[in-house]
């Protein structure tokens, strides 16, 4: 066990290959696929305390704890999952997975296409948020979970959580949507398109067949990540962290050395480390899924009509400086839910950390999240159903 009492400790990812074909929203079918997932805590006898964590764009199954004692960084949502934390692993059985199309063990563009015995690459089917939800439902079946106590997600994960409430209304009691939106704004789509262009215009992209060519469009992916990263932070947050501090060089006359700001080297580091660990085709696939997500499209573009299908309770949280998924977007969700007479609570958390705030420590966020999860845990103990 790790020395940190708030940590779930050392965790070992598990995987399962599903042999039952999965029909996708795009019309194609995956004959089989593998999902990698982690679980924390214990499923109770009534199987009523399971919580599904849906991950954001670049997250994956490793949401909490560490993979080894030497592991430098814990899971992506370690601040909020663990003993005594809001998603309390002493009370909940937590499931987190690498989504289909991902690049951390689940079947995705970098996997081998059984029909061609070559990497899927750009031939990997286009995925929608609902495909993830469907594959997650199969994972729930596998684990014997008929109904989640809660489906929880931030950002793209929040979109999955909302989709769960409409696709499988009887299979969740609570839906926790953090820093998310019912659909992206044109500005969001523009950023995603710019990121994709950075990747596809890298000479090493090779029309997405870089693995066959033994190449990797690292520079393109790094730029894509830098663009994304800027949008996940706020002007204020970047300013507080870096200001205009120089890493090297000087503004003095007669000095030839190039001036480099701290923020430049930070961004380059973020881009480089990401491009060494993430698959470019997966990045394209995930940003497309984000772009195409529109909660109410098939309900006549009426979010109230959409949410009238939901049978769970909702908790929404947004952050004041998040301009990528601004509080207005969460308020739209709250309004639609209230009009549909669905139980909902909403809190707008003061933060200067931009969109990334949903992963970072923040005392009010922690308290609100904790208060809501405690209620759910109490319900699980009482054996309360719908």
């Amino acid at each position, binding site marked *: 066990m790790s020395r940190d009492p708030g940590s779930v400790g050392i965790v070992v990812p598990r995987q399962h290959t599903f042999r039952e074909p999965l029909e996708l929203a795009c019309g194609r079918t995956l004959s089989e696929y593998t999902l990698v997932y982690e679980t924390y805590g214990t499923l109770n006898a009534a199987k009523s305390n399971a919580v599904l964590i849906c991950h954001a764009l670049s997250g994956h199954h490793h949401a909490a704890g560490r993979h080894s004692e030497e592991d430098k960084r814990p899971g992506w949502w370690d601040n909020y999952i663990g003993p005594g934390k809001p998603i309390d692993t002493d009370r909940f059985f937590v499931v987190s997975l690498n989504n289909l199309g991902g690049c951390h063990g689940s079947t995705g563009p970098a996997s081998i296409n059984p029909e061609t015995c070559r990497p899927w690459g750009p031939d990997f089917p286009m995925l929608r948020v609902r495909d993830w939800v469907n594959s997650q439902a199969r994972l729930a079946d596998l684990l014997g979970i008929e109904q989640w106590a809660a489906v929880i997600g931030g950002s793209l994960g929040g979109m999955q959580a909302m989709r769960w409430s409409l696709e499988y209304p009887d299979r969740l009691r609570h839906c926790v949507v953090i820093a998310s939106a019912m659909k992206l704004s044109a500005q969001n789509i523009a950023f995603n398109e710019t990121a994709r262009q950075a990747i596809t215009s890298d000479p090493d992209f090779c029309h997405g067949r870089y693995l066959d060519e033994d190449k990797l469009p690292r520079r393109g992916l790094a730029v894509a990540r830098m663009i994304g990263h800027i949008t996940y932070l706020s002007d204020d947050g970047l300013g507080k962290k870096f200001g205009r501090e120089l890493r090297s060089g000087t503004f003095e006359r007669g000095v030839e050395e190039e001036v480099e700001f701290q923020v430049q080297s930070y961004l380059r580091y973020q881009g480089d480390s990401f491009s060494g660990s993430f698959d470019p085709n997966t990045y394209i696939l995930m940003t497309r899924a984000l772009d195409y997500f529109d909660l109410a499209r098939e309900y006549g573009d009426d979010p109230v009509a959409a949410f009238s299908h939901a049978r769970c*309770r909702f908790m929404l949280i947004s952050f004041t400086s998040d301009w990528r998924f601004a509080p207005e977007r969460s308020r739209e969700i709250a*309004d639609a839910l209230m009009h549909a007479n669905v*139980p909902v*609570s909403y*809190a707008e958390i003061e933060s200067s950390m931009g969109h990334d705030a949903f992963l970072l420590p923040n005392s*009010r966020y922690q*308290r*609100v999240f904790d208060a809501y999860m405690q209620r759910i845990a109490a319900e699980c103990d009482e054996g309360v159903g719908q």
Partner: protein
Amino acid sequence: MRVDLDAIQDWIRPESRVLDLGCGDGLLLEQLARNKQVSGYGLEIDPEEIERCIARGVNVVEQNLDAGLGNFADNSFDTVVMTQALQTLRQPHLVVQEMLRVGRECIITFPNFGQWRARWHLAISGRMPVSDLLPFEWYDTPNIHFCTFRDFDLLCRERRWTILHRQVVSETRIGVALKDFSPNLFGETAIYHLTR
């Protein structure tokens, strides 16, 4: 239970939809859900009160009432309630107008500044009254628009709001005994039940 919250529960129909503006810790909504199967939401702006609502399992949405109720459709609630918050609003009359658009009926309670103790305090000491109910100094109070029972009566008449019920309540013995004799002088808290 605060005496005004007790008094207004009779005016809310079972299984109706209620919006509670400035719902505080959510006690009223919790009671209404338990005793009358009422569904609804509270709007609140104070972070600590919001946490208390969530801990109780009451639906609470963070929203500033001064920004209006534009996100709610006409007639979307049976009753819109606002207890002890009217005096904290920038434009109380506009919020009441909105309450009557969003709800078929509305219930408002507020501290009656015409009550004898407030008058006495101001008259004798020449200073703004500070009491159990209004425990703030003038410079750091959230209360910016005090009115009396009689003032609100006049507002209702001017605006042509229909008063279904109105009463004052008091927790002091003298107030309980004399509030019907002179509501504006002896009522601590004014309660109005309005419709368009």
